[in-house]
């Protein structure tokens, strides 16, 4: 049956790119007509529309559907038109060539399997020809057919074709594209489009359609390692279904999965389907699936499932080649949100490493990146990101940046020179040798009557951390304990005086506090830290630094409660927009998933909260056998 066979007919998506006025839309319109793909009504409409504007038949009207596009004879936005050839179904993606519409050009071209780069014979290679070629390479489109158009305007001369072809091929070679064919054509006259042109008998290669027929659609990367970004977790009934699209590789029932960045492990119990039927035992790249797991681990949208072999890279820092679409400029220190597969996370620009000039491919230093420029930029993320290098696994190595409500950049990741932090801690330790103290922790503990400990308070501004820290310190001191509070005042003025409040500085601030608190604890002291410390990743690092001596206490109060307290007037200023990245208002607070103690200051008065913390310290930190010397 014809219908069934057609189901598996390969469909090829081809973007048509190139400089404005080099005849892209005309080429597509004429190609549609010459392949019998223009419906009769559409042809009549184009003829009528051309007559109304007093022009000869204007093939570009087949695509330029907006009034503004027809009146100004320029393509504004990208469009897609189906074209059927005897061999296959093609979707033609028209991409605007005008510099002003580059974001539309990449929106169209990014969906393509292959591209036709159109260059006008008389004008030759121009600014947008090079930029579009460069963007194709950045978008990962390597199959390119070059059409040297408007050969009629140069008398169908072979020498001109050779000149333009040579110049373009040299440029393409430098950016790693080797064109599959260079075809001399006249789109308007229909020469060399669907059959060999008698006017260019000197040309021996394929006509344009024949060149396109040699292209194959891109296939989902089934042979790469498994990458399944979690899109959502559904609990519509008793099942807990983890849903997502397999970006690469295959998954089987029974497979052991690791969810990054949290490193949770579970096995695939079932692959769920609807309508109910025989349950599949495997699925592959390209499929949108739902799975259940054998253990109730906490995973959420943004997590990345892979097998325990071939894990993604975990990192706080990465370098990317970006195409900047924003209306303003990108500058070091600026913060954006990254969308990487299903992960949405804050990132900050650490440095602009080099600006790339698409004209001559030279790199230049710059303190900013402006609209339509391409640059290499290093980004830092407060939390760990799970990703791949673009060259290793495109779907997990590319991203967009969001500023407010707008998409402002597209980028591809290069990790050269950056370590995978999954192994970084282990690697760094290998080169260090610990000098052993001549007396151990036991001796210090016996003298003090208590263990060294990091009592790590976390919670919103106004939750009561400082009030409780100072009162707990007073009470412990009076009982003769070695105790000290680290807070913003005594840390920021000295040790961390070089740090500001940008997200990267905040991360570093907490890192140093964690390390210092660990040293205090190792020296036998009880150190209470009183910092918002909003990110789970930062607190986990502090926990690791303190080894077993870390006690996380969540001082719990919601934003509404803290805002009514607002002793420092900070919430009011944050609401007014005076304070950027204010936790709870314009920056997230990540609640501790399993703190050692939760102290709810909304429900309990200060005295009760202090008592709860002292009880905890007495049962976990104070040595039972020998009480401290009374003071």
């Amino acid at each position: 049956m014809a219908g069934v066979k057609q189901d598996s007919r390969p469909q090829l998506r081809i973007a048509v790119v190139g400089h404005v006025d080099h005849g892209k839309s005309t080429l597509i319109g004429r190609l549609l007509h010459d392949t019998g793909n223009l419906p009769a009504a559409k042809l009549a409409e184009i003829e009528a529309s051309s007559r109304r504007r007093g022009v000869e038949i204007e093939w570009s009207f087949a695509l330029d559907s907006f009034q503004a596009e027809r009146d100004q004879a320029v393509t504004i936005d990208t469009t897609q038109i189906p074209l059927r050839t005897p061999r296959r179904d093609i979707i033609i993606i028209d991409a605007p060539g005008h510099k002003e519409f580059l974001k539309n050009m990449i929106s169209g071209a990014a969906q393509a399997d292959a591209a036709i780069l159109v260059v006008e014979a008389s004008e030759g290679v121009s600014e947008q020809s090079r930029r579009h070629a460069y963007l194709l390479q950045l978008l990962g489109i390597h199959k390119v057919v070059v059409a040297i158009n408007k050969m009629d305007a140069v008398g169908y001369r072979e020498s001109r074709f050779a000149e333009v072809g040579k110049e373009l091929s040299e440029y393409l070679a430098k950016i790693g594209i080797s064109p599959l064919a260079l075809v001399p054509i006249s789109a308007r006259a229909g020469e060399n489009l669907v059959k060999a042109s008698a006017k260019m008998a000197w040309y021996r290669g394929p006509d344009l359609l024949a060149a396109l027929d040699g292209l194959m659609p891109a296939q989902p990367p089934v042979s790469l390692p498994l990458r399944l970004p979690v899109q959502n977790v559904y609990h519509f009934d008793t099942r807990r279904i983890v849903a997502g699209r397999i970006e690469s590789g295959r998954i089987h029932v029974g497979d052991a999965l690791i969810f990054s960045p949290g490193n949770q492990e579970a096995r695939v119990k079932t692959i769920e389907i609807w309508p109910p039927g025989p349950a599949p035992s495997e699925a592959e790249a390209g499929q949108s699936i739902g799975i259940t797991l054998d253990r109730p681990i906490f995973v959420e949208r943004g997590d990345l499932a892979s097998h325990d072999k071939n894990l993604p890279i975990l990192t706080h820092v990465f370098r990317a080649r970006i195409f900047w679409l924003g209306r303003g400029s990108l500058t070091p220190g600026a913060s954006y949100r990254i969308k990487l597969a299903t992960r949405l996370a804050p990132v900050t620009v650490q440095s602009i490493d080099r600006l790339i000039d698409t004209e001559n491919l030279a790199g230049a230093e710059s303190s900013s990146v402006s609209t339509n420029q391409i640059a290499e930029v290093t980004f830092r993320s407060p939390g760990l990101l799970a990703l791949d290098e673009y060259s290793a696994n495109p779907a997990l190595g590319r991203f967009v940046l969001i500023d407010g409500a707008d998409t402002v950049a597209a980028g591809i990741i290069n990790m050269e020179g950056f370590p995978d932090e999954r192994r970084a801690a282990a690697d760094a330790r290998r080169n260090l040798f610990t000098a052993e103290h001549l007396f151990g922790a036991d001796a210090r503990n016996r003298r003090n009557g208590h263990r060294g400990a990091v009592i790590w308070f976390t919670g919103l501004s106004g939750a009561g951390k400082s009030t409780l820290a100072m009162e707990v310190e007073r009470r412990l001191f009076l009982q003769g304990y070695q105790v000290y509070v680290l807070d913003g005042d005594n840390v920021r003025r000295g040790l961390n005086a070089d740090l500001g409040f940008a997200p990267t500085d905040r991360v570093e601030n907490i890192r140093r506090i964690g390390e210092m608190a660990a040293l205090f604890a190792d020296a036998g002291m009880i150190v209470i830290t009183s910092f918002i410390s909003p990110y789970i990743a930062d607190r986990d690092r502090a926990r690791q630094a303190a080894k077993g001596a870390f006690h996380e206490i969540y001082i719990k109060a919601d934003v509404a409660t803290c805002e009514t307290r607002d002793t420092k007037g900070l919430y009011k200023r944050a609401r007014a927009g005076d304070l950027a990245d204010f936790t709870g208002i314009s920056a997230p607070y990540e609640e501790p998933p399993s703190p050692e103690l939760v102290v709810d200051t909304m429900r309990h008065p200060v005295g009760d909260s202090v008592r709860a913390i002292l009880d905890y310290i007495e049962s976990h930190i104070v040595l039972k056998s020998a009480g401290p010397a009374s003071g």
Partner: protein
Amino acid sequence: MLSHLDELEARTIYILREAHARVQPLGMLWSIGKDSNALLWMARKAFFGRVPFPVIQLDTAMELPEVYEFRDRIVPEWGLDLHVEACPPIESTDPNLPPASRAAARKTEGLKNLIAARGYRGVILGIRRDEQATRAKERVFSPRDLGGNWDFRDQPAELWDQFKTELQPGAHLRIHPLLHWREIDIWRYTKRENIPIVPLYLARNGKRYRSLGEKNITFPIESNAATIDEIIAELETTTTSERAGRSMDHESEDAFERLRSAGYM
């Protein structure tokens, strides 16, 4: 290896799940035509048998009786949360539009009222690129301003399946999970999945509806295709466009563009 229809379906499911995860409150328009039926079917696949958002019919009371019959049969069968939004009368539409466009614009007004009343941030629609030239220029997640207008001169960048889900206050998103399907794909999928359709699509006495709209502005085409297989065979060779029977597309060169930039589907 996935078949062509499998690939189309997987992408639509991905888009529906993105919309559901990132855009709330969310609703889906159901015209009860072949496209939105196929889309509802895929929503049931995406969410394992449930459609986790309301399904909205913009009702002008001018649909053909078979359409209402079909609706009343499917709603309980598929467990849909149906909301019927009565569209305002033709007098409330832009008087500068040609007559059939004004009739169609009643749905634009109905949609605006609905969004205002229910505060939707996202509305899912079953339009396709190959239906009509201005639809071919759409984004999958397409923002509309406070008045429901489409600023087609300045559409957001959309690549690598990263969709615009952040909005200015008062704006909403039109979400188009079927943009990449063609008419013939919808029919092959309807056949493969055995999805129910309004019988008006199948020829009787040499005529059938290729595209379903209100009875005052939609006309059947000459056809003997009485089964889905025959429809598919007909589409293999036709050079007539799908919306030839929809009056509002043909009243003037820019009739449909004007309708859409003012908020039509």
